[in-house]
């Protein structure tokens, strides 16, 4: 076991665990979107789980840091909050905010983070930059709504873990990046019919089981 100090509180955790996991296990919430417990190599792509660690000049993404004996960590400094708010604001600026008509309403990870950071879901500083991508209707059992997607990659990870070869994956690049179900329609019929792991893990209601309510322009 390893002991470390987070926000002046001593916590114990298993050796080799990530700092983010250790904090979450001990009831200390750090905003995060792309981290999944059990993920060997966290992508660290959502840029929300920043913390300040004694001995480092700059805040670090806690999902990419392994715990060390005697680590002293602060999760709520001004610097950390500023980074988190900016990252969150950028995510929101491409997110189609329409909570009332969204099936993820009240269980959406974005709402949770907004509440935690005391940050409204309405943009103040940035202009909204919605991506002009059509809703994916090709999959026999799933719907993908790119304007809601935060590209956390959790769906790709769980699909790969459960089915060996993923049925979905990132496609394109940069601002045009989407989740794609390209190919293997026949395989999807067998595999996806009983899985739905991707729709369950989606933190923002961007992947839905077909025929569920609130799918825009079916």
């Amino acid at each position: 076991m390893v002991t470390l100090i987070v926000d002046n509180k001593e916590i114990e955790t298993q050796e080799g665990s990530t700092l983010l996991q250790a904090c979450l296990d001990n009831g200390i919430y750090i905003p995060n979107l792309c981290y999944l417990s059990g993920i060997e190599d966290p992508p660290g792509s959502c840029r929300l789980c920043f913390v300040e660690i004694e001995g480092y000049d700059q805040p670090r993404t806690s999902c990419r840091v392994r715990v060390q004996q005697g680590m002293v960590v602060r999760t709520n400094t001004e610097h950390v909050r500023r980074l988190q708010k900016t990252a969150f604001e950028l995510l929101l600026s491409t997110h189609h905010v329409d909570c009332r008509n969204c099936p993820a309403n009240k269980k959406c990870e974005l709402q949770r983070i907004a509440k935690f950071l005391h940050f409204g879901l309405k943009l103040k500083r940035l202009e909204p930059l919605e991506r002009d991508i059509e809703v994916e209707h090709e999959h026999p059992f799933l719907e993908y709504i790119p304007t809601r997607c935060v590209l956390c990659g959790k769906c790709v990870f769980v699909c790969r873990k459960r089915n060996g070869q993923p049925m979905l994956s990132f496609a394109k690049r940069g601002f045009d990046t989407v989740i794609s179900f390209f190919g293997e329609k026949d395989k999807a019929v067998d595999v996806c019919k009983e899985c739905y792991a991707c729709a369950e893990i989606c933190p923002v209601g961007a992947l839905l089981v077909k025929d569920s309510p609130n799918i825009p322009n079916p």
Partner: protein
Amino acid sequence: MNLSAETEEKVMFDDIASMLRTFEEKRENLMPILQEIQEKYRYLAPPALEMVAKRLGLSSCDVYGVATFYNQFRFNPPGKHQIKVCLGTACHVRGGDIILENFERKLEIQAGQTTPDREFSIDRVACVGCCALAPVAIVDDTVYGHMAPSKVEGVILGFEIEKERKEREKQDSESQE
């Protein structure tokens, strides 16, 4: 799609199948294979991507993800006339995106796509090396400098008239025989 295009595709897929047999089932062969197909046929047809995935034991969407990441691959057969609109810095400043938009609207396709009759395809390119002529469009091998939205129609019309003239000549020679 007409019949000849269909047989053409069949020949292409047969050829790709035999080409794939020369590669070992290793993930690192993915890029060389995609590049070879692109080099030879100028585009990656979706069924070809699935064939590649099967050969390498990867999932199709993984192959698609890699292929769509790179600008060097296209997914539609190039048109008979390839329109390239420059969006390099100089052309961008002089409104290259407006030229692109005009071509897109006129032909009713997006950049990277081909018209259903396979006559025209549009691509965006980054600098063709004649920035003094900005904004620039290149159609086949002809450089059109100082492009203006009003000139777009004329360029397309020129090709359409040329096509009609050739067809008429063909008909005339056939009727003479």
